[in-house]
């Protein structure tokens, strides 16, 4: 009975954790983002994929094991537009909020990204302090203010 309770508890904990996919090729940015998420003291898992291709199998695996774990938030680079299209055309039961985090400020990039339904576009600040600040804004807004899809 006790072990059953414990199993139930673990499943519940796992289900309340927020899973975040970070598609990013810059090691420094990955490290800083991870640190910021850790400092938020929220129950999060941050998975880093180095490019769009690396994140695809992850997203597919997530889809097939959706009852166990799911991606709640996706932080991606601009050139992962193809990944975005893949996610959005997959006949999955839910859309994952996708935040594009990129150094590009080009207007056409911004438009292109909102077209296949990215949730928001953020220009990555060049300065260290500003970058940390931007990540903190993302953490606070998406994990404390917005409601994400319910755990499955």
């Amino acid at each position, binding site marked *: 009975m006790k072990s059953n309770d414990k199993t139930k508890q673990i499943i519940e904990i796992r289900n309340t954790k927020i899973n975040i996919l970070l598609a990013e090729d810059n090691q420094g940015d990955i490290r800083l983002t991870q640190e910021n998420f850790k400092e938020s003291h929220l129950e999060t898992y941050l998975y880093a994929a180095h490019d769009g291709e690396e994140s695809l199998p992850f997203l597919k695996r997530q889809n097939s094991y959706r009852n166990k774990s799911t991606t709640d938030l996706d932080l991606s680079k601009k050139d992962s537009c193809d990944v975005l299209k893949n996610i959005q055309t997959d006949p999955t039961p*839910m859309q994952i909020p996708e935040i594009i985090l990129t150094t590009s*400020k080009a207007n056409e990039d*911004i438009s292109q990204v909102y077209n296949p339904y990215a949730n928001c576009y953020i220009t990555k600040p060049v300065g260290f302090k500003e970058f940390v600040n931007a990540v903190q*804004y993302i953490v606070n807004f*998406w994990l404390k*203010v917005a409601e994400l*899809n*319910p755990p499955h």
Partner: protein
Amino acid sequence: MTHHFGADFKPIDILLIEDNPADVRLTLEAFKEGKVNNTLHVVGNGEDAIAFLKQEGKFNNAPRPDLILLDLNLPKKDGREVLEEIKNEPLLKRIPVIILTTSKAEEDILKTYNLHANCYINKPVDVNEFILIAKSIENYWLTIVKLPST
């Protein structure tokens, strides 16, 4: 009802689709104190929202908003229908739509993200909390996020 704030060159146009006058008032207050110069346009039902966005009838001079704040339970045309129309219309679908609702129903969260809502926010009942939430929206969407050009 249109409210103008600040004196910067090009204010950000926001369309608030909300039928509760108290919530309208609080949102106006929160955005007025914001760092970014903005103009908040308010419509009280779903039909007016679509007319505003398509610049029809009395809204023929309405600007194309940079950001939309949408309540779900609205008179005349439901917020879910309004969202679906916006996201299916090629000229409107890039405008970020933030759902701001008292509904905590999981099916509303799932359904609106599936309809490509840009984010879903639960409207707090407490007035001070409401102001805080509205300020976070202002902070995040107007200072951190790059909105698509209109």
